């Protein structure tokens, strides 16, 4: 049987439990070879789901949290090395 809370009271959906990664139409893809580690993408991401790790003096690794990335493309736009490319998800290809 359907159970409804009095007055529409419910425990809030914590954002950690509520994944939004499937909302977007695009996803970012990075070429780590081009990355110079400026971290523009990291600080520009509105969902804070980019992490830039320093591997050694010249090598950086960029990782995305696809549970929350909505594919806005800001990271690709701000990247001065053109290391990030936005790719259309399979389902949205026409």
């Amino acid at each position: 049987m359907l159970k409804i809370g009095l007055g529409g009271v419910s425990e809030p959906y914590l954002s950690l439990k509520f994944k939004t990664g499937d909302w977007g139409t695009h996803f970012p893809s990075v070429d780590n070879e081009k990355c110079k580690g400026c971290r523009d993408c990291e600080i520009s991401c509105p969902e804070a789901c980019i992490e830039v790790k320093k591997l050694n003096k010249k090598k950086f690794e960029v990782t995305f949290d696809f549970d929350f990335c909505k594919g806005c493309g800001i990271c690709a736009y701000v990247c001065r090395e053109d290391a990030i490319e936005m790719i259309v998800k399979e389902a949205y290809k026409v």
Partner: protein
Amino acid sequence: MMKVVRGFYSVAYSVKQCKPDVICAYPITPQTEIVERLADMYANGELGNCEYITAESEFGAASILVGASATGARSFTATSSQGLILMSEVLLSAAGMRLPIVLVNANRSLSAPLSIWNDQQDSIFMRDACIMQLYIENNQEVHDVMPIAFKVAENRRVMLPFMVCMDGYKLTHAYEPVDLLDEQMVDKFLPPYDAPVKLSVDKPLTFGCYAPPPYYTEFRVAMQNAIMGAGDIMLKEFKKWYKITGRDWGGHVVAENPDAEVAVITMGSLTGLVRDVVSEMQKEGKNVGVVKLRTFRPFPVEDIKKALKNANKIIVFERAVSFGHEGPVAIEIKSANYESGADVYSFAVGLGGRDIPRDLIREIIDKVIEGKVEPGFQFEGVKPFEEVIP
């Protein structure tokens, strides 16, 4: 303790005895002095742990009360006319969130044209909001009704806002002897509010969550069930109150002469005057009776049927208009009393505070008895006028 007080103080003193936790209001004529008196009491430390918050608007006041009520606080506000309309968005949500906020509405006409005087258009406008509405005849009644309002609203099977509607000026500004309630007696009748769900910092909750089409209807059905069930709960509390105080204000409907063939229905402070006129006519041998409608929401269909079972002509004195149709009380009476087939004569009187003279009431009732008017809706006491372009 019998005292001669104004309507404002009658409400404020009764609310004080109900021990509210949060009072939040914004001043509006003719309600202002209710919250002014409560603010006095707060400043004098008479309200205990109560929080008195001055809001920046009625919208703010209602919003603060929604928050307060969600944390399990007994909350109260008073408003009027445009203030009630400004509150309406929040109050509709409060009803859906099942928050038992109690408010007093000092009935005043709605703009435009701007008028600060009394009619019942404002609370009638809130008819479909799932807020209980009780109309008051005098200042002792409003004094007695406040604890009942809190008790019914906070009943676990109801959990809905309760609006006590008293005529602005006619009651609020009037001096009347009122038997002020005793603290211990109210404490015994009205236990502290024990909320079924409480919002707190440690337990974040969403109130009135998003309900997509597969679930929305069920929430609305639950609201309808709650307000329909509130009728019986109100009657029980009215009876309990009568036992405690010895003052019987009747049920949802008070049929003062149930055998009468011509029933005159009124709501609010007009009842006293109509009762006077009708008893005069009864002495002349006319078969007329007064039916006082107290509860407007939930609408007491069965009680109305019972009160009007002998009537073949029903006169309704309206203090509001459902523009584009007719008098709002007559609409309800017709739908409730459909099977009896009695003629309903509805008269809009005293809009925007216009005086309702005794002679006008007498004239209207005489006109109906003598069959000089057709059943239906009309305005009474209107001056001849012409609309011109200024």
